[in-house]
C-alpha cells in the first residue's frame, strides 16, 4: 500500500482494471481508486463509474454521488492546463482580488479557484503543473500564464 507512488510511476498510465485491482483489497478503496482514475484519464467517465461500482459491489448512484461530491473529480475531460489560484482570506488580505482583475486568460488555459495552498504568509499564491508559486504580482502572474499557454 505504501508503494502507491512508486507503482504509479512504473506504469505511467495503468488501465482501469489495474487501478481497481491495485486498491480493491484496501479498507475504503473508493477514493484511492477515483484519485488514480482522475490522474490517469483526466476525468471519471460514466463507464469508469459503472466498472468501479461493479467491482466494489456498490450502486452506480453511490459512486456517482461520491464523484460529484468532491471538487477534485470531474466527469467531463478538460485538457486545458490550469492555474490554481488561491483566493482565500489570507491571499485576499495580500491583494489577490486586485491581482485577479488584471489577468487576461490566454486561450487554452483555465484558471481554477482554490481555497488555500497553505502558504498564507507569502501570498498571493498559485499552483501550476504541480509547482507552487508565491509572492505573485501582475508580472509574475502574466509570466505564469504565458508558460501555461
Amino acid at each position, binding site marked *: 500500500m*505504501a508503494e502507491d507512488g512508486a507503482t504509479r510511476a512504473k506504469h505511467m498510465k495503468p488501465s482501469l482494471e489495474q487501478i481497481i485491482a491495485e486498491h480493491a483489497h484496501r479498507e475504503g478503496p473508493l477514493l484511492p481508486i477515483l484519485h488514480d482514475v482522475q490522474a490517469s484519464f483526466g476525468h471519471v467517465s460514466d463507464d469508469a463509474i459503472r466498472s468501479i461500482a461493479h467491482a466494489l459491489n456498490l450502486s452506480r448512484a453511490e459512486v456517482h454521488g461520491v464523484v460529484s461530491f468532491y471538487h*477534485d473529480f470531474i466527469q467531463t475531460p478538460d485538457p486545458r492546463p490550469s492555474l490554481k489560484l488561491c483566493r482565500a482570506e489570507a491571499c485576499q488580505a495580500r491583494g489577490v482580488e486586485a491581482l485577479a482583475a488584471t489577468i487576461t486568460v490566454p486561450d487554452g488555459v483555465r484558471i481554477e479557484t482554490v481555497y488555500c495552498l*497553505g*502558504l498564507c504568509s*507569502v501570498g498571493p499564491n498559485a499552483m501550476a503543473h504541480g509547482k507552487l*508559486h*508565491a509572492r505573485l504580482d501582475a508580472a509574475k502572474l502574466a509570466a505564469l500564464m504565458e508558460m501555461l499557454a
Partner: protein
Amino acid sequence: MTVVRISNDSLALACGADEVAAAFDAAGCTVERVSSWGMHWLEPLAEIDGQGFGPLQPQDVAAVLSGQSAKAIGPIEQHPFIARQQRRTFVRAGKTRPLSLEDYAATGGWEGLRRARDIGSEAIVTEVTTSGLRGRGGAGFPTGIKWQTVARAQAAQKYIVCNADEGDSGTFADRMVMEGDPFLLIEGMAIAGLAVEAMRGYIYIRSEYPHAIATMEAAIRASADIVAPFVLEVRVGAGAYVCGEETSLLNSIEGKRGEVRAKPPLPALEGLFGKPTVVNNVLTLAAVPWLLAHGGAAYAEVGFSRSRGTMPIQIAGNVKHGGLFETGFGVTLGDLVDDIGGGTASGRPVRAVQVGGPLGAYHPPSDFHLPFDYEAFAAADGLIGHAGITVFDDSVDMSRQARFAMSFCAAESCGKCTPCRIGSTRGVELIDRISERKGRAPDRIETLPQMHNAPKVERTLGDEIALLEDLCETMKFGSLCALGGFTPYPVLSALHRFPEDFGITPVVEPAE
C-alpha cells in the same frame, strides 16, 4: 567545503528555494535540505555555520559566500522571532533533514515512544490528561478524555485517525509538521495507538498538499519497523473543505461522500468503519512525543488558565513578519500582530484580524489586549481555532469579507443540514442587498393572499440586518457541524464590529 542549509518546505520552494540551492551547489557548496525555521518573510533562507541570509535569490549567492551580503541576518537562533519562542512541537524546525532517521533520533526522537512502551496504556492516558493537552484542531476538547473513552471501549479493531485536512486559510502548521518533521507525527500516532490499543492509523491529508503527502509516505516507509506492529497509511482528500470536520473525514476515508454525521454516536465509540476511533489534529498528535518524554506535568507548566502548553501560532495575511510562532498560551493578540508580526506588510494601519481561519471572527485592534486562550476568545465572541491569524489593513471592506464567509460556506457545505446548505446562500443574497443599501419590496409570491406570514410592506435596511442576524442565529444553533455553525462568527463580527461597512452607524447598531 561550505555547508549551506536551505529548507525544502513547500513555502520555501514556492519562493524559489530550489533555484537558490542550485546556485550554491554550482558555487561548490554542499547543500543540505532541511525543514523551515518558520520565518517566512526571509524565505528562501540559507544557513551557513548558524548565520542566516535571506530572502535570497540566485544572484545573491556570490555576495553571501564572499561575506558581503546585505541580506545577512546574523545568528538565526538569536533572531528575535526565534529567540522569543517556546518551541516544543517545532523544536526541530530549521535544524534537521525531514526524512533523516539519524537526525530525528539524534534530536530526542522516539524517546516519547520508548517511554510510552515502558509505562503502558493506562499511564500514557494519565500523562496526556495531566498535561492538559486540548485538541489543537479548534474545538479544544481535552485529549486525555478522548483517549480514555477509546481506551475503555471494547472492540477487536480500533483506529487512530490524524486529521491533516488543514483547509483553513491562514494556517500552515500541520503542513510544516508533515513536511518538516514527519517522524514526530508518526511517533505521536504510534503513542496514541499504544494508549488506546489501536493497531492501525490513517493520516488524512488534503490533496492541495502534494509535498506533505510525499514526505509522509516516505517517512511511513522509513519508520515502519520502528513503530511496528502499528501500521500507518496516508489517505488523500479530494478538495472538500468540509472533510476537515471529523465525522465527514471518517466518511471520506470510508469512500463515501464527505457528509457530516450526527453525533452521538461519538467517533470515540463508533468512528471509522463503526469502530472506536481517536480523531486528532496533526498538532495534537505532534505535541504528544514531547509530553511523554518530559512528562505531562512539565508540559502543563507553560500556558494560561485552562489552556496548557504551547500553541504553534500561524501569522499570515498582510503582515510584515509572517510565519510560525510557537509559544505558551497567553500571549496577547496585539503582541502577535504588532510586535512579533511587525504590523502590516503594506505599511498601512491594521483594520481587522481574523483569528481561527475562515470560521473565525474578525477582531478590530480594540481587541488586541485579548490573551491567546480558548476561553478568552470565546468570551469575546471569537475562537482561536487552529491558531491562524490573518491580518488585514485598512483597505479591507468588511461587508465583502462577510459575504465571502457566506459564499465560502455555500460552496463547501456538504448539504446534509438545512441551515448550512440553504442559509449560506440566503446569507449571500442578504448581504448583497445590504451592500446595495436598499430594502426589498415583497415579491409576487409574498403578496399572494395565501402567504399570511409574509410581510406586505417593503423591508428596510434595518429589517434586512435584523434578518441577517436572525439567519446567523439559526445557522449557529441549527447546523450539524462547525461549517454552518461557525460561519456566523466572521459574518456577525464583521457586522457588529465594523457596522460602518454595512451602511449603519455604530449608534444605531441593533441590540444583540
